[in-house]
C-alpha cells in the first residue's frame, strides 16, 4: 500500500469519534453554507470551462500531496495545497477544489471521518483558503512592484494557512472536550509552525517554477484583484481571531471547558431523558445493573436475529441459484 505515507502524515484530518456531535454539526453547517456560496459564485462569474479545470486540479492537488522532501530523520515536508490553489484559481474555486480533495480523502481513504468531515472541510478548505487569500492579497498590495513580493507573499500565505488551520483544528478538539486546550493548542500549533514551513517552501518553489514557465498564469488568473472583499475581511478576521483566541484559550483552559460544558446541552438532554424514561422502558427491573444486562441481552438478540435473518435469506438465494445453475 504505497499510498500509506500520503495518508498517515496529515495530523490535521480529524477522524470520527474525536468531535462532539454539536461541534460536528456546527462546522458541517458552516461548511455547507460556504460551499453553497462558492458554487453560486463560480457559477456566476466563471465560464463552463471551469468544471474540467476544477476537477483536474483537485485530482492534481490530491496526488501532489504525495510529493515530499526529506527534512531530517524520518520527517518530511509536504503539501496541503490550499495556498497554491487559491493563488492559481482565486478563492471561491479554490474552496471547491480543496473541499473535493478533503471529501475524496475521507470517502475513499478514510483520511478524516465522515461526521467530522464538516470540520475538516472548514479547517482545510475554508480557513486554509480564506487565510491564504487574505495574507496573499495584503502582502501583494504591500510589495506591489517587486517580483519577489509575489514569492514572499506565497510563502507566508502557505505557512499562515497551515498554522491557522491547525489552530482551528485544535480549538475544535478542545471544544469537544477531547483534548485539553492547554495541551492541544500548543502541540498542534507548534507542530504546524514547522509543517507550515515545508508547505511554504514547496509553494514558493511551485510559484517560482510557474513564474518562469508560464508567467501569464500568475499575472492574469493569479494576480488576485481585490474583488473579493468579503473573503479578504473574512480571512483576516479568521486569522486574527484564531491567533489571538488560541493563546488565550490555552492559558485559560477552564474557560473553554466551561463553554464546552455550557454547550453540552445534548448531555443535559440525555440526562433529562434518563430521568424521564426509566419508568416506561424496563418496568419491573429496579436494579440498574440488571437493567443494563437485560438491555444488553435484548440488543444482542435483536442484532443476532437480524444478522441471522440476512444470512438465511442470502443462503436461500445462493442455494436457489446453485440448484438452477
Amino acid at each position: 500500500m504505497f499510498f500509506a505515507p500520503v495518508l498517515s502524515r496529515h495530523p490535521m484530518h480529524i477522524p470520527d469519534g474525536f468531535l462532539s456531535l454539536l461541534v460536528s454539526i456546527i462546522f458541517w453547517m458552516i461548511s455547507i453554507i460556504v460551499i453553497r456560496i462558492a458554487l453560486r459564485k463560480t457559477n456566476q462569474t466563471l465560464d463552463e470551462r471551469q468544471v474540467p479545470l476544477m476537477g483536474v486540479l483537485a485530482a492534481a492537488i490530491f496526488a501532489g500531496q504525495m510529493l515530499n522532501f526529506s527534512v531530517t530523520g524520518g520527517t518530511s515536508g509536504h503539501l496541503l495545497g490550499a495556498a497554491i490553489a487559491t493563488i492559481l484559481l482565486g478563492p471561491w474555486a479554490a474552496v471547491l477544489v480543496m473541499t473535493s480533495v478533503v471529501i475524496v480523502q475521507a470517502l475513499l481513504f478514510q483520511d478524516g471521518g465522515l461526521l467530522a468531515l464538516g470540520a475538516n472541510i472548514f479547517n482545510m478548505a475554508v480557513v486554509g483558503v480564506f487565510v491564504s487569500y487574505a495574507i496573499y492579497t495584503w502582502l501583494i498590495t504591500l510589495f506591489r512592484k517587486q517580483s519577489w513580493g509575489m514569492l514572499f507573499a506565497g510563502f507566508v500565505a502557505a505557512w499562515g494557512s497551515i498554522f491557522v488551520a491547525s489552530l482551528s483544528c485544535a480549538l475544535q478538539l478542545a471544544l469537544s472536550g477531547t483534548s485539553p486546550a492547554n495541551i492541544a493548542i500548543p502541540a498542534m500549533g507548534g507542530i504546524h509552525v514547522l509543517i507550515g514551513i515545508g508547505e511554504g517552501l514547496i509553494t514558493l518553489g511551485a510559484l517560482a517554477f510557474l513564474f518562469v514557465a508560464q508567467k501569464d498564469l500568475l499575472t492574469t488568473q493569479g494576480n488576485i484583484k481585490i474583488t473579493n472583499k468579503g473573503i479578504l475581511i473574512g480571512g483576516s478576521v479568521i486569522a486574527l481571531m484564531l491567533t489571538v483566541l488560541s493563546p488565550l484559550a490555552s492559558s485559560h483552559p477552564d474557560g473553554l471547558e466551561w463553554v464546552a460544558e455550557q454547550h453540552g446541552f445534548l448531555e443535559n438532554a440525555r440526562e433529562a431523558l434518563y430521568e424521564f424514561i426509566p419508568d416506561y422502558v424496563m418496568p419491573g427491573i429496579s436494579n440498574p445493573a440488571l437493567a443494563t444486562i437485560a438491555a444488553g441481552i435484548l440488543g444482542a438478540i435483536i442484532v443476532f436475529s437480524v444478522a441471522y435473518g440476512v444470512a438465511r435469506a442470502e443462503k436461500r438465494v445462493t442455494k436457489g441459484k446453485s440448484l438452477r445453475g
Partner: protein
Amino acid sequence: MWQVRMESNSPVHRADARVKVTLTLAFILFLNMAPHQAWPIYILFLTVLLSMILLARMSIWRVIRRTLLVTPFILAAFPLIFSGPVPHLSISIFGSDVIKYSPEGLGRFISIAVKAWLSTSAAIMLTLTTSFPDILTALAYYGVPKLFIAILGLMWRYLFIINDEVLRMMRARDSRSAVTPCTQQVGGSLFWRARVTGSMVGSLLLRSLERSVRLYAAMLSRGYNGELFTLEANALSHTERRILSLGVLLLGVLWGMSLFIGD
C-alpha cells in the same frame, strides 16, 4: 495498488449505494451520539459491523489493517487520561514515583479510541463495497448540487492518471538523486530539496492545467455546453426501503439503549 473497491458479488456489494451510504452515516452518527463508556453498546455496534463484514465476505484483517491509519490521531486524546475530571488516582511505579491519572479520563480516552476505530471501519466497509461513481449517484440523489458532483466525478476519473504522473516524477527525481554510503543526505541543501519539490508541484499543476484544457476541448467536441448530466437514480425498491428503515431503526435502538448504560 490503489485498492479502493474490492470486487465481489456479495449482497453488501450488490446493495444500492443509497442504502449503504445512509446506513453507514446512521451507524457513525448513532455511535458518536452514544455516551462515553457505554461498553456493551460498543460491542453491539461491533457485532453489527462484523456481521456486515462477514456478509460482504471480506477479510477482517484487511479492514483492520486499513484502520491503523487512524491510530496516530489517538495521541490527540491521550492527555485526557491525566487531565480528566477529578478524582485522580495515583499508581506508583518504582516505589516512590507516582503517576496521577483520572479513571474518568481514561474511560473517555478508551471510548474515543473505540468510537474512532468503529466509525473508521464502517467508512472502510462503505469504500470497499461501493464504487465511487455509485456513491456520487447516491449523493446526487440526496441533493448535493450537480456542479459539485461533476467536479468530484471528474476528479475521480483523473485521480489515477495524475497519480501515475506523480509517481513517474518521483521516480525521475529518485533516479537522479543517488545516495552514497558516506553521506545519507539526498540532494543538496534543505532549501534546494524544497525548491525541487516545489518545481515538481508547479510542473504538475501546469501539466494538469493543460490537461484540463484538452479535456474541455474533448468535452466541447462531444456537445458539452455547460449543461451537466448525471445519471438519474431510479426510485428505491420496496425491499430496499424496508432494509433501510429497519437498519436505521436497529441502530437507533442501539443508541437509545446506550443512554441507559453509558455514563
